[in-house]
């Protein structure tokens, strides 16, 4: 009897956990196939290690109809242990700060790609500094609970927006981490309709020289966009970068070299408006570029930065060939 009860509980747990795994609002998102975000300590780290500004900002959107408390969780929030990037010795401190309230998103400097000016706009709801902490190594740390109403309501998203900034305030080690938005403090339980985005994506590529390990990020193309200008930094010429959309099988774009920015423009097709692009990054075959940390931004023809959503708006764009067959003249 007792044995049966355990089996039932186990099966029930699996069923409950499944949606959380499938739909969790994790950053990087499941469709992105990116192992970690990365931020280096700003004291001593070099941009050539793959972080141009030692700071990373993400925004979470909570649908306005969601009224319950929620949590922002960080995987491997500390700097040290197995999943971070060591330089000499662990000496780095990271400050995670969460903001809500007016201006946390709508302040123009909040939408920038450089941690300058009033990028920490809004009302700070929580903050914590992390150094080396074995208790948090490869574990989840939870901020919250937060009241959705404490975010900044943004009508276009019909959501309350929160901001989390990870600043590498000291040291020179690389902090590898992930975020998750959750209804629960002890597990990643997604909030229906919630999402996360950034304007500058700094992340770690897979340590793999197999081209089947493809990472993706998904900029959203809003109406009025005529062309985009992508900029990427310190890619170490590691593989191929192609842009995929519903009408674009794979437009090749240049990747940067060591400690270098490159940029390129790409006209936007009508069918791409209101959908996401798929920026695909294929690792280079052959010699492994190990611990490759990279930065990506994209802006429209007005120089306005575009969002990379963790869960691509409109879904992952799938290229659809369109065949025309006509008699040969």
């Amino acid at each position, binding site marked *: 009897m007792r044995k049966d009860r355990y089996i039932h509980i186990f099966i029930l747990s699996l069923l409950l956990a499944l949606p959380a795994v499938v739909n969790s609002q994790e950053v990087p998102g499941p469709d992105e196939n990116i192992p970690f975000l990365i931020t280096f300590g700003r004291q001593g780290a070099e941009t050539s290690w793959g972080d141009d500004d030692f700071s990373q900002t993400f925004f979470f959107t909570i649908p306005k109809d969601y009224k319950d408390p929620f949590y922002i969780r960080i995987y491997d929030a500390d700097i040290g242990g197995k999943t971070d990037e060591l330089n000499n010795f662990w000496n780095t401190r990271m400050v995670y700060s969460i903001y809500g309230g007016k201006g946390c998103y709508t302040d123009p400097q909040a939408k920038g790609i450089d941690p300058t000016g009033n990028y920490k706009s809004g009302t700070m709801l929580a903050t914590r500094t992390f150094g080396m902490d074995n208790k948090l190594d490869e574990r989840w740390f939870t901020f919250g609970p937060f009241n959705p109403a404490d975010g900044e309501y943004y009508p276009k998203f019909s959501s309350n927006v929160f901001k989390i900034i990870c600043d590498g305030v000291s040291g020179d080690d690389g902090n590898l981490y992930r975020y998750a938005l959750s209804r629960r403090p002890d597990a990643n339980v997604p909030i229906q309709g919630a999402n996360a985005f950034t304007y500058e994506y700094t992340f770690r590529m897979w340590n793999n020289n197999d*081209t*089947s390990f*493809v990472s993706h990020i998904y900029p959203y193309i809003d109406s009025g966009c005529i062309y985009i200008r992508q900029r990427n930094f310190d890619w170490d010429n590691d*593989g*191929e970068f*192609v842009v995929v959309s519903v*009408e*674009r*099988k*794979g*437009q*090749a774009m240049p990747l940067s070299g060591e400690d270098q920015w490159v940029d390129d423009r790409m006209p936007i*097709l009508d069918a791409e408006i209101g959908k996401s692009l798929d920026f695909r990054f*294929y690792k280079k075959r052959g010699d492994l570029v190990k611990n490759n940390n990279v930065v990506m931004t994209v802006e429209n023809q007005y120089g306005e930065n575009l969002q990379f959503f963790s869960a691509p708006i409109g879904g992952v764009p799938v*290229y*659809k*060939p*369109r*065949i*025309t*067959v*006509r*008699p*040969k003249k």
Partner: protein
Amino acid sequence: MKRHITYTAVILTVLLICSSGLYGQAKGSFEVSPVTAISSGSDDMAPVILSDGILFCSNRKVNPFLTKKNLEGVRLYELYFAPFDENGKPGKPVRFGSNLGKDTNIGPASVSSDGKTLYFTRNYIVGRKVKKNESNKLGIFTATRNGAQLTDIQPFEYNNPASNMSYPFISADGMYLFFCSDMPGGLGKYDIYMCENVDGKWTSPVNLGDKVNSADAEINPFLHSSGRLYFASDRPGGHGGLDIWYTTLAFGSWTKPVVLDDPINSEADDFAFYAVQGGLEGYFASNRRKYNDDIFRFATTIIRWSVCDTLRKNNYCYEFIEENALKNDTIDVRFRWEWNFGDGTKADGVTAEHCYSGPGVYDVSLDIVNLITGGIEKRQASYELEISDIEQPVIVSPDKIMAGENLVLNAGESNLPGMDIARYYWNFGDETVSSGLEVSKIYSLPGKYNIQLIVSSKPGTGGVVREVCVCKDIEVTADGN
């Protein structure tokens, strides 16, 4: 009496012996009707179309005083002229050339294109009784038309009282005189001969040879403006009795004669074919209604369509385009488009071309190969391509031939689903026509000819006959280049 028998023998021998044909053209492509206005209870035959009427010969009864008989009391043949009425139809016939001979058969005849010279058949002995054991065969004579009078009657220089010389036909240019004779040295009972006018003199008669003449009888030569020589023959291969055949002179030799189909030819005797310039209408003689010979009018039922679709070539070649890839120009080397055409063949490229072997339904699919990963994305798009032949009558023939060359035209590849085909009509673009699934045609003159193929169905519901037309240009060259 004897003279009459002799003449009749010549005529009837020729007519009866020949149990097969004259001209041969197209089954069902003509309508035939007796010319009642000139019919008599006697024999009416050998129509010649003039500008203002029809000249023919007849042994009809006129009245007891005027009916022409020989001295033995046998009715004789003489020429009659039936003027066209305002509708172009022959009216009441009147005697023609009554001064051409007394107590003798006169006719058939032929008239030069300027209308001034009459070539006619007449017995050699005129105006007296034929003696016992004396033969009175037929010879060819000419007369000059001078107003209403025919004067200056002259015998043809190659007349020979020992042989029959008859059925003269003078070509439109006056350069050739055809006639028939049982003279020694011929190939059959009655052969067709030809003389050429060289410096105003007729050359010696030349037998047209075994392509035209047979062991049987060939009579009633008629050289049409199209270059066809029509004649009547009772040779095997016809419909019965005399039939109308035609042949064409090509590079100095006559082509194998072709027999005209019904309704011009019948199981009875059909002969003395004479067509207007276009060949689409004319007259001939036949005894199909009764024992007597009657003159019939024929007219083609094939009209030339004023608007006829040009024959389109079936196209089995297609272009395959991946539009989305084509409009983005940076696909370059990272991906490869692989087309599977559904017939076991493949090609690479954002666009591709392929020619199929024929109609069918083909499952065209597109795979995209990622050249970075080597992965193949199968069937990223597919297209069911149904290729069918164009619904149309189809003319199968060479596009270019030489003048005088036998052109074979075939309609067997016509694609007209649901159409219960009754007839294939051909209009050769030179005012000649034919019918049948496969026909042959010889163009004498170089030029470009627009051939129409008109296909008609059997009557459907309510008796509706469906007709469709395609046309094709044929280039006829003088030298094959």
